[in-house]
C-alpha cells in the first residue's frame, strides 16, 4: 500500500465500529489519478484510501472539483484514457486489482459485479433504442440466458423499481418517460444482475425534489433487499444525511475526513467539513434569522393580473393548432418595491415562463404592469424603455456569458444598448460594479472561461445591475453553484437589495433557498399558483397539499432526523397539454387571513 499522506488526519476507516454486516467488498488503497496536461501530470485524486463493506451505503461528499466523480469512474475503469489515468494505488475487488485489469476483463465486471447510474437520466439512456432492448442487452451481455428468459428478468427488474405496467413499458422509448421514470429504468438496468456494488453518481441531482425522495427511498429499499453495497456520490449534505452509513468528505482530490454519518455530522473534525455543513441552506433557517416585518416600499414594481401563456401544438394537413400547452394559466400577483418575491415549483410548472412573459419574451394574454405601465400595448421603443427596469440572471453562468467577449465588455454592453454614458464613464461604472460584486476591476480584460462558476455568476449579477433596474429576475440563479458558493452569492444578492433597493423575482425549485431569501412566496403547480403568502405563512403554516409535499420532500441535513419513509407522489404529474378549445380547470385562491392565499379544494 502506498504511504497515504491523508492518513495522518484521517482515522483509519477499518477501525470504525461496523454497523453493517460482513466483509469488505471493495478496497481502494492509495489511489492516485492524474490528468495529462501540457504542463505535465495534474493530480485529480491523491492517495485515496477507503473500504466498502457488504450491504452498506458509503457517501462520497464534496463540491465540484473534489474528485468524487473521477473516483467512481476510476473504479469502473471508465476514465477518459489516455487523457486521465490511474497513476498509483490499487482498487481491490474480489481478489483482483481493478487498476491493472485489461479492458476485456474489466468489461466482464462492469454492469455485472459493479454497476453504475449517472446524474442525467434524460441523456443517460439511448434515445433510439427501446427500454426493453437496453435492459435485455445488459442482461445478455453477462449471462447466457435465452432471449425470453432475459426478457422476464428485465420485467422483474422494472417491477423491482416500482415501474407500473412493466411488461408494456419494454416497448417504450426513453423520451416517452419522465425524468424520474428514466432514472428508475437506469436503476433497474444496474440492478438486474444483482451486482455487489452500485455506484450512484449524483443520482437525484437532476430530479425534482418530490421525485428525488422516491428514488432515494428506492435505493435504500433495494440495498436492504439485495444486500448491495452502494457508493453514493453527492454534493448534497441533505442526501448524505438521509442515506449514508459512512461518509467520506473530499476536497481537491483528497479525502479530508471520513467516518460514520452520525458522529461526522454531530462533530466534524475538520474545518472544511464544518464549513460545508454550515453552508447548507436548511428549512427553518430563514425563519430563525428573519423578522416577520415585510420588506418593501409603498409601490408595486410589478402587477400581474390574469396572466396566461400558452403554446400551440400543430398537426393535420394544414398545420392547424390542435392542442395547446397551458404553460401559465390565469396567474395574478404583485411584487412590491424592494421585496423578494419567490416562485417555487417543480420542472414544467410554468415559473420560468412567467419570467419570460415579464421580460416581454413570449406572447401572453392578461395584464402585466411594470411600474404602473401596461406592457401589452407598448411598441418596440416603449418596450425597450420598460426593459431597462427589468434584468435577468439565469441558471447557467457558463452558458449565459459570450465566451468571445471580455467580461468588462459584457457588463458594459447593456449601457451601450441603451445609449448610456460616454466610453470613459462607462468604464468607470463597470469598474465600480466589479468592485461591488466582489471582483477586482483588473479582471475586466479577461474572458469568461478564466473565471469559476461562482465568479461568473457574479459577473452576471454585475451585468444585471449595470442599468440600475427596479426588478431583477433570478431564474434558478444559484442552482448550479456549490453550496458554499451559493451561500455567498445569496448573501451578495441580499446586500445589493438593501443598497440599491431592487426587487427580486426569485425563481427556484429549492425550498430551503427560497425560504432563506424570500419575503413572499408563491407555490406553482401545473401553470397555476396554488398557495401564496409571506414566507412565514407559507413555510410555517402550509395549507395546500402540494406545498406540504414540497416541504416534506426536502432532505434534512441531519442524520438524527432521518425519515423512515419519504412522502410519495401518487402517479405521474398530469400533463398541461389540452385539446384546442378545452381549458384546464382554474383554481380560485381564497384568503385564509393576513393575505395568505390558498387554492380552494
Amino acid at each position, binding site marked *: 500500500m502506498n504511504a497515504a499522506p491523508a492518513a495522518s488526519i484521517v482515522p483509519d476507516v477499518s477501525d470504525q465500529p461496523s454497523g453493517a454486516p460482513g466483509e469488505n467488498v471493495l478496497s481502494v488503497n492509495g489511489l492516485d489519478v492524474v490528468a495529462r496536461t501540457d504542463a505535465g501530470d495534474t493530480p485529480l485524486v491523491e492517495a485515496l484510501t477507503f473500504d466498502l463493506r457488504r450491504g452498506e451505503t458509503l457517501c462520497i461528499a464534496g463540491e465540484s472539483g473534489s474528485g468524487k466523480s473521477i473516483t467512481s469512474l476510476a473504479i*469502473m475503469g*471508465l476514465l477518459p484514457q489516455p487523457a486521465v489515468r490511474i497513476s498509483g494505488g490499487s482498487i481491490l475487488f474480489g481478489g483482483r486489482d481493478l487498476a491493472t485489469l485489461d479492458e476485456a476483463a474489466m*468489461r*466482464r*465486471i*462492469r*454492469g*455485472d459485479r459493479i*454497476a*453504475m447510474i*449517472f446524474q*442525467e437520466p434524460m*441523456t*443517460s*439512456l*439511448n*434515445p*433510439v*433504442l*427501446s427500454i426493453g432492448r437496453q435492459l435485455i*442487452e*445488459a442482461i445478455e*451481455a*453477462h449471462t447466457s440466458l435465452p432471449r425470453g428468459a432475459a426478457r422476464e428478468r428485465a420485467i422483474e427488474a422494472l417491477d423491482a423499481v416500482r415501474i407500473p405496467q412493466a411488461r408494456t413499458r419494454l416497448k417504450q*422509448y426513453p*423520451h416517452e418517460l419522465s425524468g424520474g421514470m428514466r432514472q428508475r429504468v*437506469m436503476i433497474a*438496468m444496474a440492478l438486474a444482475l444483482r451486482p455487489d456494488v452500485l455506484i450512484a453518481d449524483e443520482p437525484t441531482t437532476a430530479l425534482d425534489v418530490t421525485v428525488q425522495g422516491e428514488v432515494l427511498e428506492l435505493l435504500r429499499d433495494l440495498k436492504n433487499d439485495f444486500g448491495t453495497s452502494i457508493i453514493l456520490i453527492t454534493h448534497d449534505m441533505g442526501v448524505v444525511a438521509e442515506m449514508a452509513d459512512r461518509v467520506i468528505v473530499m476536497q481537491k482530490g483528497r479525502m479530508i475526513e471520513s467516518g460514520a454519518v452520525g458522529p461526522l455530522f454531530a462533530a466534524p473534525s475538520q474545518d472544511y467539513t464544518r464549513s460545508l455543513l454550515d453552508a447548507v441552506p436548511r428549512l427553518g433557517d430563514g425563519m430563525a434569522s428573519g423578522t416577520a416585518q415585510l420588506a418593501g416600499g409603498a409601490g408595486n414594481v410589478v402587477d400581474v393580473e390574469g396572466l396566461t401563456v400558452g403554446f400551440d401544438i*400543430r*398537426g*393535420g*394537413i*394544414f*398545420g392547424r393548432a390542435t392542442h395547446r400547452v397551458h404553460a401559465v394559466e390565469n396567474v395574478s400577483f404583485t411584487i412590491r418595491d424592494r421585496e423578494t418575491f419567490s416562485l417555487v415549483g417543480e420542472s414544467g410548472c410554468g415559473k420560468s415562463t412567467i419570467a419570460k412573459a415579464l421580460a416581454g419574451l413570449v406572447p401572453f394574454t392578461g395584464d402585466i404592469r411594470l411600474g404602473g405601465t401596461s406592457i401589452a400595448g407598448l411598441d418596440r421603443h416603449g418596450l425597450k424603455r420598460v426593459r431597462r427596469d427589468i434584468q435577468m440572471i439565469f441558471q447557467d453562468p457558463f452558458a449565459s456569458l459570450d465566451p468571445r467577449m471580455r467580461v468588462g465588455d459584457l457588463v458594459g454592453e447593456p449601457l451601450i444598448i441603451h445609449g448610456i454614458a460616454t466610453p470613459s464613464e462607462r468604464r468607470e461604472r463597470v469598474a465600480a460594479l466589479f468592485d461591488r460584486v466582489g471582483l477586482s476591476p483588473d479582471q475586466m480584460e479577461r474572458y469568461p472561461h478564466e473565471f469559476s462558476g461562482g465568479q461568473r455568476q457574479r459577473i452576471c449579477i454585475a451585468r444585471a445591475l449595470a442599468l440600475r433596474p427596479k426588478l431583477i429576475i433570478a431564474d434558478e440563479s444559484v442552482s448550479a453553484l456549490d453550496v458554499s458558493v451559493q451561500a455567498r452569492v445569496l448573501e451578495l444578492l441580499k446586500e445589493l437589495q438593501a443598497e440599491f433597493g431592487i426587487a427580486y423575482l426569485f425563481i427556484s425549485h429549492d425550498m430551503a433557498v427560497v425560504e432563506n431569501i424570500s419575503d413572499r412566496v408563491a407555490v406553482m403547480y401545473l401553470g397555476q399558483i396554488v398557495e401564496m403568502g409571506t414566507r412565514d405563512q407559507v413555510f410555517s403554516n402550509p395549507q395546500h397539499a402540494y406545498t406540504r409535499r414540497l416541504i416534506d420532500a426536502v432532505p434534512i441535513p441531519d442524520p438524527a432526523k432521518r425519515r423512515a419513509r419519504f412522502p410519495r407522489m401518487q402517479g405521474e404529474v398530469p400533463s398541461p397539454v389540452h385539446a384546442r378549445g378545452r381549458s384546464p380547470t382554474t383554481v380560485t385562491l381564497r384568503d385564509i387571513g393576513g393575505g395568505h392565499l390558498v387554492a380552494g379544494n
Partner: protein
Amino acid sequence: MAAYLVRRLLQTALILLGVSVITFALLYLLPADPVRQIAGRSATPETVENIRRQLGLDQPFIVQYWRYLSGLLQGDLGRSYLQRSEVSTLIAARLPASLLLMVGAIGCELLLGLTMGIVAAVRRGSVADQTMMIASFVGVSAPQFVVGLLLLYFFSVRLGWFPIGGYGTWKHMVLPSVALGILGAGWYSRMMRSSMIDVLRQDYVRTARAKGLARGTILFRHALPNAVLPIIAMIGIDIGLFMSGIVVIESVFGWPGIGQLAWQAIQRIDIPIIMGVTLVSACAIVIGNLLADLVTPFIDPRIRLR
C-alpha cells in the same frame, strides 16, 4: 401520417409548378433561337417562320406556357424538336440507366464515406484519421470531370481493369459510380466523423460502457444509429447534386442516361427535352427528400411525422 403525406404531395405539386415556370421563363429569355437550329442554316425566312408558327413559338410567353402546362397536367411532356419522338418516351428509355448510376453512386458514397468517417472518429488523431481526412478533402475539392478522366486513365487505359465507357455489365458501372460518388463520400466522411465523435461523447455511450457491452456493440448498436441521423437528411439533398453530376459524368463515360440526353438537348436548344429532364430531376430531388424524411422516424422514435 396520411395527413403528412397529403401535405407533402401538395407541397411537391407547388414545387414542380414553380420549377416549370422558372425553367420555361429562362429558356424563353435565352438569346439563342431554337427554330434556327431546327431549320438549319440554309432555310429560307419563310420556312423559319413556318416552323415557328407550327411550334407555337410566335405566341406570347403566357400563351406558350399555358399550352405547355395544360399538356403537362395531362401527362404530356411534349415532342422533341429534333428527335421526332415524345419527350416522355425518350426520358423513359434513359431513366433506368441514370437511376442505376445513382444507386451505384449512393452505394459508393455511403460505403466509402461512412466507413472512413467511423474509422476516423474511433481512431481520432491517428495517422489513419489524418490520411483519410486529407483524402476526403481532395475528394470534396476535385471537379467531377477531372476525377472521371483520371479514373478512366488509370483504371481503364493503363490497367485495363474496367471498360472505357458504355453500358451493360457491372464492370461498366464501377468507374462512373465512383466518379459520381467520390464528392459525396468526401462530405459524408467528414460529417460522419464529427457526428460520431459527438455521439461517442454522449452520456448514453458511457452508460453502454458501464453495462459492460462489447466495443462493437457499443459502436454499431448504440452510436451508429444516432450518428447517422444527420447523414440521412443529407442523402435527400444529395440527389440534387447527383442531377447536376450526371450531366457531366454520363458524357465522360458515355453512359446512356438522362444526363447525356440533357447535355445533347442543351447543345441544340431542344426546349421540350430540357424542360422534361428538369422536371424529372426536380421530382427526383423532392422524392429523395421525402424518402429521407420517411426513413428517419424508423431510426429515431422521437421524430413523428405530422
